[in-house]
C-alpha cells in the first residue's frame, strides 16, 4: 500500500490508511512456524528426544496469534486486532479438529482397502472360514433395516416438527417438545431391548427380524429428525408464511409449498444426519436383528446381518487368521461410510432440485 500511494497523501486516505497488506498474515505465520521449529529443534537437541512436529505447530500457532494481534493492534487498532485474533483462533480450532477426523478416515481407508475387492461385494459369509468371504448379506441388511427405519421415522419426525412449529401450542406441544428431547437420551441398547420386548410380546420369545431392528433404530432416529426439522422450520421467515396466507392460500398448502421447500436443504441435512447416526448402530441390532452368515431379503422374517454388527463381530471374535477378520471389519466400516456418502449425494441432489433458488 505504501508503495502505491505517495507518502504525504497516505495519512489522509481514510480507506487504505492503517491496514496491513494482504500477505501479512501468511508472512507472520511462516515466521512464527520457523521460530517454532527452531525452538522445537533446540528442545530436541537439549533433551536428546526426536524433533517434534507437534511442538513446532503449537509454538508456531501461539506465536502467530500473539504477533498478528500485536502488529494489528499497533497499525490497525483494537477492533481489527480482535478480528484478526478471532480469525486465527477459529482457523486454528478448525485445523486442530481436522487432525483426529483425518486420522480416523485415513485409518479406515488404509485398513479397509485391503479387502475392498469384488469378492467382498458379491459374497456372503456362508460357508466361509478364515480368509475370503464378503459382506453382501450385511450390505443388503443394513440398507433394508435403515430404509425401514427411515420410512417409519421420517414422516413421523417431519409431521411432528410441523405440528410443533405451525400448530402446536399449549400443554401437548410443550410435552412433545420436552419428550422428544428426552428421546435423544435413550441409550441405543435400551432401544434394542425395548424393541425386543415389544416383538417378543407378539411373536414369542427369541424373535429376530430386520423390522425389529428398524423399530429400534427409528426410536433413535425420530428425535434427531424432529429436532433438526423443527430448528429449520423455525428459521423460515414469518413474512413468507404471512404473504402466502394473505394471498388466500390454505394453511396446509402454505406449509407444503412455501415453508417446507424453504427449509428443505436443512431438513435433508437433518435427515441425512439422522440416518448417519443410526446406520452405524451396533448394540440394538445385535439384540433384535440377530446374526447370520446368509443372505436374507425379507425384513419381516428371520435374522438379518448388518454392517456394524458384522464389523463388531469380526473384531470381537476372530479366528486364528486374525488379519483376515480385522481386514473384513475395516472394509465393512469403509463400505458403511461409502453408503452414507451415496445417501448424502442423493439427498443433496433432491435438495438441489426441489429447493427454491435462494440467495446463496
Amino acid at each position, binding site marked *: 500500500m505504501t508503495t502505491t500511494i505517495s507518502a504525504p497523501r497516505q495519512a489522509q486516505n481514510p480507506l487504505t490508511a492503517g491496514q496491513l497488506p494482504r500477505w501479512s498474515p501468511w508472512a507472520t505465520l511462516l515466521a512464527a512456524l520457523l521460530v517454532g521449529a527452531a525452538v522445537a529443534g533446540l528442545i530436541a537437541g537439549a533433551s536428546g528426544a526426536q524433533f517434534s512436529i507437534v511442538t513446532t505447530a503449537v509454538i508456531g500457532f501461539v506465536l502467530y496469534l500473539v504477533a498478528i494481534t500485536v502488529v494489528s493492534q499497533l497499525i490497525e487498532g483494537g*477492533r*481489527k486486532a*480482535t478480528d484478526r485474533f*478471532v480469525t486465527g*483462533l*477459529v*482457523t486454528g*480450532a*478448525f485445523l*486442530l*479438529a481436522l487432525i483426529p477426523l483425518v486420522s*480416523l478416515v485415513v*485409518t*479406515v481407508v488404509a485398513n479397509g482397502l485391503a479387502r475392498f475387492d469384488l469378492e467382498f461385494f458379491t459374497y456372503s459369509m456362508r460357508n466361509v472360514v478364515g480368509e475370503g468371504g464378503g459382506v453382501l448379506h450385511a450390505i443388503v441388511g443394513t440398507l433394508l433395516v435403515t430404509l425401514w427405519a427411515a420410512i417409519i421415522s421420517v*414422516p*413421523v419426525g417431519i*409431521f*411432528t416438527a410441523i*405440528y410443533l412449529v405451525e*400448530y402446536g401450542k399449549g400443554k*401437548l*406441544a410443550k410435552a412433545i417438545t420436552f*419428550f422428544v*428431547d*428426552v*428421546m*435423544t*437420551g*435413550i*441409550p*441405543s*441398547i*435400551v432401544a434394542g431391548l*425395548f424393541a425386543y420386548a*415389544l416383538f417378543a410380546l407378539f411373536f414369542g420369545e427369541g424373535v429376530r427380524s430386520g423390522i425389529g431392528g428398524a423399530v429400534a433404530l427409528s426410536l433413535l432416529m*425420530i*428425535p434427531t429428525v424432529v*429436532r*433438526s426439522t423443527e*430448528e*429449520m422450520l423455525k*428459521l423460515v421467515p*414469518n413474512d413468507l*408464511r404471512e404473504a402466502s*396466507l394473505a394471498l388466500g392460500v*390454505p*394453511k*396446509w*398448502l402454505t406449509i407444503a409449498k412455501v415453508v417446507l421447500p424453504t427449509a428443505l*436443504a436443512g431438513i435433508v441435512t437433518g435427515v441425512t*444426519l439422522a440416518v*448417519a*447416526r443410526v446406520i*452405524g448402530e*451396533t448394540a440394538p441390532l445385535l439384540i433384535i436383528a440377530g446374526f447370520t452368515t446368509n443372505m436374507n431379503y425379507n425384513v419381516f422374517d428371520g435374522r438379518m446381518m448388518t454392517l456394524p454388527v458384522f464389523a*463388531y463381530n469380526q473384531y470381537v471374535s476372530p479366528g486364528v487368521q486374525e488379519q483376515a477378520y480385522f481386514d473384513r*471389519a*475395516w472394509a465393512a*466400516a469403509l463400505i*458403511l461410510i461409502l453408503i452414507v456418502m451415496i445417501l448424502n449425494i442423493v439427498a443433496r441432489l433432491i435438495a438441489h432440485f426441489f429447493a427454491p433458488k435462494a440467495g446463496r
Partner: protein
Amino acid sequence: MTTAAPAATTRASAPNRPADVIFKAVSTTAGVLILIALAGVAIFLVAQAVPAIIGPLPDDDSFWAWVWPLTFGTLWSAFLAMVMAVPMAIAIALFITHFAPRRLASILGYAIDLLAAIPSVIYGLWGIAVLAPFMQPAYAWLAENLGWIPLFSPPASGTGRTILTAAIVLAVMVLPIITALCREIFLQTPRLNEEASLALGATRWEMIRMAVLPHGRSGIIASSILGLGRALGETMAVAMVLASAGAVTFVVVGSQNPSTIAANIALRFPEAHGITVNMLIGSGLVLFAITLLVNAISRWIIAKTTVDGGR
C-alpha cells in the same frame, strides 16, 4: 423458542377447509405417536427396573450405591467431551460458513456430514489402535510434571486408555453432529443483517458476534444437546476404549477410571441373568432421567437467553 410465529399464523388462518383439518390431524397424530412410543419405553424400563431398585441385590449393596460410580463416569466423560467439542464445533461451523473460501466450504461441509456416519465400533477401534498409544506419553508427562493438579495426579496409565482418551473419542464423535447443525443454522442468518452490519463498518468478527451468533443461539444449544445426548448414551466406543474400574475419581490420566452407564450395560448385558438384568435396565432408567434433567436445564437456558427475539 416460544416466539410469536405460530400464534401469528393461527390468527390469520382462513376458514377451515377439510384438507387443513386433515393436515393438522396428521401432524398432531405424529406428535402423539411419539408420546405413546416414549411412554412404552418408559413403562418397559420402569417395569424392568423396579425389582432392582426396591429388591435386595446379590452383594447387599443398595442399587443407588451401585449405580452412583457409573452415573458419575457418564456425567464426567460427557462433560469433558462437551468442553472440547462445543467450542470446536462452533469454530469449525464458523470457519466453514464465514471464513473459508466458498468452494472449499461446501466440500468441507460435506466431509463433516460423512464423519457423523462412522459407526461407533470404528471410533472404538481407532481409539484403541491410534489415539490411546498416541496419548500415553502425554499422560505420563502430565502426571510427572503437573501431578500436583488433582486432574493429573500420578501414576499415569500404562496403556493410555483413560477417561480422557474416551472423552476425546466422544468429542470427535459428536463434533460432526454439532458442526453440521450449527453450520446449517449459521447459513440461515438473514443475509440483510449480515450485510447491514458489514456496511456499518463492522469487522467480520463483530458481524458474527452481533448478527450470526445471536441468531443461532437457540440452534447452537439445541445442536449441543443432540451432541450431549449422543455423548451420554454412547455405548460401544466407550466400552471398547475405556479401561474402566468403577472408581469415582476426577483423575483423567490414571488407570483407575469410572465406567459409564451405557458402556456398562453393553459390557455386562450379554452375560447377565436374573437380578443383574434388572440392575442394568435400572441403570438405563437412571441415564434416561439424567437426559431428562439435562434437557430441562437446556430448555430453561434457551428460554432465558432468547428474550430479545433474534428474528
